[in-house]
């Protein structure tokens, strides 16, 4: 609430935890543990977030208007406990897209500098 219109670029660069959470929420609403599972799955278990990092990040993302709560309900895949679900806001989606573009441009630079495979085609060597 009460968020003035802001440019997504103003929040960049994002911390790894915040970007991973945005990515986890890009295709579905998830609860805290669901976010952890998605992040672990997409990174092959390399990125593991503790509850403190997760909820500290969620708190600040809520305050920044990147995400919002979407109610409480049980997760049928787990048990009958009610869990609080989170989803991206439009602003959160735009911030995630801006960060993805920023990282993509960096990857192009890395390729151009022959730090990654595919440098030949880009660098013209």
């Amino acid at each position, binding site marked *: *609430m*009460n*968020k*003035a*219109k802001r440019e997504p670029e103003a929040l960049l660069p994002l911390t790894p935890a915040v970007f991973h959470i945005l990515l986890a929420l890009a295709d579905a609403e998830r609860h*805290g*543990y669901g976010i*952890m599972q998605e992040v672990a799955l997409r990174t092959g278990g390399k990125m*593991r*977030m*503790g*509850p*403190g*990092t*997760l*909820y*500290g990040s*969620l*708190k*600040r993302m*809520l*305050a*920044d*208007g990147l995400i919002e709560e979407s109610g*409480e309900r049980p997760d049928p895949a*787990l*048990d009958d*406990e*009610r*869990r*609080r679900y989170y989803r991206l806001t439009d602003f959160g989606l735009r911030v995630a897209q801006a960060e993805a573009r920023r990282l993509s441009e960096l990857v192009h630079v890395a390729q151009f500098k022959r730090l990654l495979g595919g440098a030949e085609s880009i660098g013209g060597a």
Partner: protein
Amino acid sequence: MATAPLRSPSLSERLYRDLLWLYPASFRRSYGCEMVQTFRDCYREERARGGALNIARLWSLVLSDLITTVCIEYWKTFITFFKSLTGLEKEFLMTSTILNLDVAQYTHIGHRASNEDNMTLYIPEDPQIMAKKGALFVVADGMGGHAKGDVASELAVNTIRDTYYQDTNEDILTSLRLAVEHANMLIWQKNEEILRYATSDEQKKMAMGTTCVATVLKNDKAHIANVGDSLVYVIHAGQVSQIAQSHELTTEQLRKGEITEEEAKKRGLTNKITRCLGEKSTVDVYVATETVQDGDTLILCTDGLWTLIEESEMCSIVEQYEPQESAKRLVARANENGGPDNITAVVVRVSLQS
């Protein structure tokens, strides 16, 4: 938020729950339950994989995460405190503070035949309206003995809300007071009509009245207006303050010096109030402004709640639980303590982010 599991928690879960006390209170209250729930999910997953090694790996992650994030949360709390000490915070608040509110409202009939309490809240989605007028919370208690107490309290909360947001006055307190006075006028006019056309004593009893307490939260300020004995409490760092003015008879007489403290104690609180909306064409509205801080909790309630719960218990409940659960527990406790009246509580947790 989550209901407690029926099975008893594991030793690991109990230990993690205790470790959460290391976090700042506001953070723990907002996310403690979810963090325990998430820890439980992780623990269950690691246990299903089998082996003490997996559990040890989980604890290794959790402990290092805990140490780091406890420091971060305290650092952010310190920064906010430091800014408020140096005055930087105030300047910052005026420009870009984001006020987040976690709100729950709950009303119960108690042991009455009908519920004459009413409540409303409005948190504008439009940032410009939010910046100008803030968020509004209103609780009203239709007068016992008046046949249409519920009509009066509903008319009061809706009129106050609509009038407040339609008013363009820049001064919040003036705007809030005018809204309450307008509600008083409307209820009084309805009473005049009832009395004018009444042909029997029974019809004259249809005259109605109500208390009301309204609070506007804008940036770091709580603006209050009240008439009668519906009150508003602020819980800050384990301390409770009642910031409205009670117009209960004994309290009012003591405040005016018409009775001594000894006489007030002897008589105790009565169920009489010295003013209400709808009784006269004008009403003396109490208004005040208080500063609130990140993590504070406000409770707007009718006398059905505050006369039956000690302030210490009120504090204990909102310190332990989130607003949704707090509101239910506050009302449940009032009911357990006898609850002869309708009981209404609006619980608002304030989160100020810079």
